[in-house]
Structures are given as structure tokens and as C-alpha cells.
């Protein structure tokens, strides 16, 4: 249906073949296409703007490699810069190197996929021979506690017995004590969805952080999120100091450009991606895969990688 970005870039550079060096002019035209592709993938416009500036500096004056067309060359620069921005090659594993029990806290907007991700993460950790305890601390959403209890039953993983008439902070401190006494080495805290501008509920998260002493605070973000991803992520990060991101619902056709925005404003790595509703649908994040997805050009890139 749509021309791929590389097709568009090829046409921009038709004239350049054999010319050798990329100039201000033809790079400008190419970057207009890159900018549109990123905006259509929901990358925040300010993030796009800064990014395009960086690529421009890199691209102008670059010698076109023998093995690549100029269009491919720009794609390669854009791709490599995006991977760098996404923290490609950086360590994005969970940091659980602390005296057990180690706590992990899940936070994010309503419906992002926190509770499901708690279940998925518990399953993953169990497969790595850890002994996780799941803690439902969402007393607001109808049947949120029951939801996590059902997931725990499916996974044969214990779920702390919270009640909706308890205070979330109390649930969390009790659960942590229980975990210490009962030999759990990992505690996963599920919190209620909330907007980053909801002062009361954001305060509650700060209190929960004090009670749960989390080693990891994972911000769970829906891959379909648009331009607001920057404000939401910055809001959670400023208030709580998140340690990483879980990008959910990537099993659809969303480009997931929000992940770039989130990384750009918080600097925190995406650690996992959610690829389905089932509890095994969690994978470690790969920056290059997301970048290929955003640019919509998996095949082209494998060619370029070889160049």
C-alpha cells in the first residue's frame, strides 16, 4: 500500500548516484521522508526534531559506500542512530542482584498491561529457578485482585492474600514481610493504573516504593501510545525514578515509536516486550528489531547490515 521509506529515499537520491558525497540539499530532502516515517510511527515530534538534527550532521559530507546506494546509506545512518538512541548493546537485563527478597514494582497508565505483565514476569523468573511472590496492590479496579489471583493459580505461583478494603501501602509492607519469612526470593508488586497527573495516586506510588523497597520499578507502556508517551513517562520517572520499561501489545501492527520517545525523555532502557495476552508472551527487548519495525524495513536492513 505505502512505499517503504527506502523506496522513497531511493527516489530522492536518484540523481546522486556516482556523485560520491552527500550534500546539504539532498540530505535535507531525504530527512523530510525520515521525519514523516518517524512521526507516522508515533515518535514524539520533539524527539524526532532532535534526532533529525543529529542525523543531518552525520550524513552531510558522508562518502557513499561502494556497496550502498545513497538511499540505503541514509537508511543505515538513521538505523544506526536509532539503535543507539534505543540503547542498543546496553545492558537491559533485570537487576536482581541484591539480598533476597528482591522487589519489582509495576507502574503505568490504566489498561497498559501491568497485571498481565506481572504474571508473565513471574512465570519467566520461576523458569529461572527463582521463587516469586505476586502481590496485588490494586484495590480500585473492580476484580483486579481476583485477576492476579487467577493468573497465580494458572502459573502455580503464590499470590499474596490482599483484600480490596486494605490500604495499598499496608498490603505492600505486609507482603514484603511475609516474603521474608516464607522464603520467597522475588516479590512482584502489581499497582493500579493511574494518570501521571493524579497527585493523590502518584503519592500513593511513592509510599508503596518506600514500603516495597523495589530494586526495579518497571513502567509498563502500551505500544499503541501516541505523542503523549513523553509526558506520561516523564511524569512517572520524575516522581518515582523508574528503572526500566515494559512495552506491551507489540503483537499487533503498532509501530511502537512511543518506545523511542520514552527512552529519549527518561533514558531508561526498555527491558521487555509483551507479544500477546498469554503468559508466555514476554520477550527480552531488542533495540534493532524495534528500529526495523519503526522504519518498516526489515528486509532492506538485513541487506545493509551485510554491506
Amino acid at each position: 500500500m505505502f512505499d517503504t521509506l527506502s523506496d522513497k529515499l531511493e527516489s530522492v537520491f536518484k540523481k546522486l548516484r556516482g556523485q560520491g558525497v552527500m550534500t546539504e540539499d539532498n540530505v535535507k530532502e531525504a530527512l523530510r521522508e525520515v521525519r514523516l516515517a518517524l512521526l507516522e510511527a508515533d515518535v514524539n515530534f520533539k524527539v524526532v526534531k532532535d534526532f533529525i538534527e543529529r542525523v543531518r550532521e552525520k550524513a552531510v559530507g558522508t562518502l557513499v559506500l561502494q556497496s550502498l546506494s545513497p538511499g540505503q546509506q541514509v537508511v543505515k545512518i538513521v538505523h544506526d542512530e536509532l539503535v543507539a538512541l534505543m540503547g542498543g548493546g546496553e545492558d537491559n537485563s533485570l537487576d536482581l542482584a541484591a539480598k533476597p527478597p528482591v522487589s519489582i514494582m509495576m507502574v503505568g497508565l490504566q489498561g497498559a498491561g501491568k497485571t498481565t505483565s506481572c504474571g508473565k514476569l513471574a512465570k519467566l523468573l520461576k523458569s529461572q529457578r527463582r521463587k516469586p511472590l505476586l502481590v496485588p496492590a490494586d484495590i480500585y479496579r473492580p476484580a483486579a485482585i481476583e485477576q492476579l489471583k487467577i493468573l497465580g493459580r494458572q502459573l502455580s505461583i503464590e499470590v499474596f492474600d490482599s483484600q480490596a478494603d486494605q490500604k495499598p501501602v499496608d498490603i505492600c509492607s505486609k507482603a514484603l514481610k511475609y516474603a521474608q519469612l516464607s522464603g520467597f526470593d522475588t516479590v512482584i508488586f502489581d499497582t493500579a493504573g493511574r494518570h501521571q497527573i493524579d497527585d493523590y495516586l502518584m503519592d500513593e506510588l511513592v509510599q508503596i516504593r518506600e514500603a516495597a523497597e523495589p530494586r526495579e520499578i518497571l513502567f509498563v507502556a502500551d505500544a499503541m501510545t501516541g505523542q503523549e508517551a513523553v509526558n506520561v513517562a516523564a511524569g512517572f520517572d520524575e516522581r518515582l525514578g523508574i528503572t526500566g520499561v515494559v512495552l506491551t501489545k507489540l503483537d499487533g501492527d503498532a509501530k511502537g515509536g512511543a518506545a523511542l520517545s520514552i527512552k529519549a525523555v527518561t533514558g531508561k532502557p526498555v527491558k521487555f516486550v509483551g507479544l500477546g495476552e498469554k503468559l508466555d508472551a514476554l520477550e527480552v527487548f531488542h533495540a534493532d528489531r524495534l528500529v526495523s519495525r519503526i522504519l518498516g524495513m526489515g528486509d532492506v536492513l538485513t541487506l545493509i547490515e551485510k554491506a
Partner: protein
Amino acid sequence: TKTHESIVGRIDSLLLGQKQIDADVLEELEEILITADIGVKTTVELIRTLEQRLKRNELKDGNALKAALKQEITNRLVQVESGLDIIAAKPFVILVIGVNGVGKTTTIGKLAAQYRLAGKKVLLAAGDTFRAAAAEQLEIWGERVGAEVVRHKEGADPSAVAFDACKAALARGCDVLLIDTAGRLHTKVNLMEEMKKIRRVIEREIPGAPHETLLVLDAATGQNAISQASLFKEAAQVTGLILTKLDGTAKGGIVVAVSHEFSLPVRYIGVGEGVEDLREFEPQEFVDAIF
């Protein structure tokens, strides 16, 4: 913060002391619209329209430009005279669909509350038999608002739930039947087939039903909402939109493109998690909030 700066503020500072509107200003406007998730395509169209009006000398200053822009956006929102006319059939059957976590079940609870307040007899169908505690969630809403719930066991066939709910709504003389469905990504062929089957069962059991098929969209969603609307409309003859979570910082601008491209009115907006947090959609108010 800077990013929270209102668009009006930015347009104003853009145009302050500037009687002439030039290409730079339009470019800046483009960015402003994109930030509200209006989308690149719609933004480019809007800007092009403004440019034409500019050439015809219709827009003299910043205020005229702003007003014209608002008007152009409002024009794209499909308008209907009133909210849902549930008197039109008995039981009036509403099918609620959408991707995961957008607010389908909550919206059903809020709609049910409104109909109960109006003295209607309401039945809820727990058509999400997949997600953990989905039926329990709907049952709690049923208790809250005073509506009965038809449910099966987890893992049951959702069209069997729809079937039973239709029968029950007829037998009990209900005014409204609200049918919840599991969240599903529009790209999942088997889940979309499952939804079509639910629809077919409803059509067969109650001629003319579902009288309304509501697609729920999350205001924080970006460009993907277009793909959602396209595939859900194709599969389930969507008749209206619900835009949820407008109480956050997201503007929900993507609904402008969705409403326009698929000729769908926005029926209601969600502005919170409480039972009363459902409003009728006011295009003017919505556009003002974007700016």
C-alpha cells in the same frame, strides 16, 4: 512544563505581532497539530486547506487562522443530533468492541448506570470469557448499578454467552442489553472471526440487533487507532465510537481522523474510572480542549 504548554499559548506566541501568516507559521502549526495526535495525514490536509484560504485572503490574522483551524477540525468530526436512542427497540442491544485495555468493560458499567438512572431494565453479558476475572469485573459493575449479568465459566464460547443473554433479555423484558467482549488486537484473524460469530448469533436471536456497535478507543492511542477502526469496522459494522481516558493529558486527536475517514460519530467520552465519568461528546468542547 514546556511540553504541557497549551496550543493556544503557542499559537498566540507564534502570531504575536505577526499580521502576516507565512510558511514558517504554518509549519509550526503543523507540529502543534501532530502533538495532539491529529496525525500526519490529517495535519497535512488541514494545513493545505488553511493555505488555500490564506491565498484567497480569507485569513487576515492569528485569530482568523485559529478560528478557521478549529472549524476545519470540527467539520471532520461526524456529528449526530443526539445520543443513543434506546427507545428505538426493546431490548436495545449494544455490542462493545475494541483492542485490549481501552475501557470496554468500564464503559459498559457507566452506560448501564445511566440507563438505570433513567429507570431502564438493563442486562449485561459477560462476553469476555478469556481474560482473567473479566466476568467478575463486569459482575461488580452489575452490582454497583443494579443490573443483572449473564455469564459463563472462564474459557466458555463467547457466542454462547451472547446467545443466552439475548434469550434472557427477551424473556425478562429488558430495555437494554449491553454485551461486553474480550479485548482483541484487530490484526488477529481468529479473534476477529470469533467476534463476527458473536455478532451473527445476536443478529439471529434478535432481528435488527445489535442496534449499536461501539468501538472503544483510548485517547492515549496514536496512529494505530486508524488501523483499529479500519479492521473493526470491516469485521463488525461499527456504528459509533467511545473515546476513553480523556481525563489524562492525552488529547485524543486521532479521533478526528477516525471519525472523518470512517464516517463514525463519537457517541461518548470517558473522563474517569467512576460510575458517573461518561459524557456525551461535544465536538466544540473537544476541539477547544485540543487548543
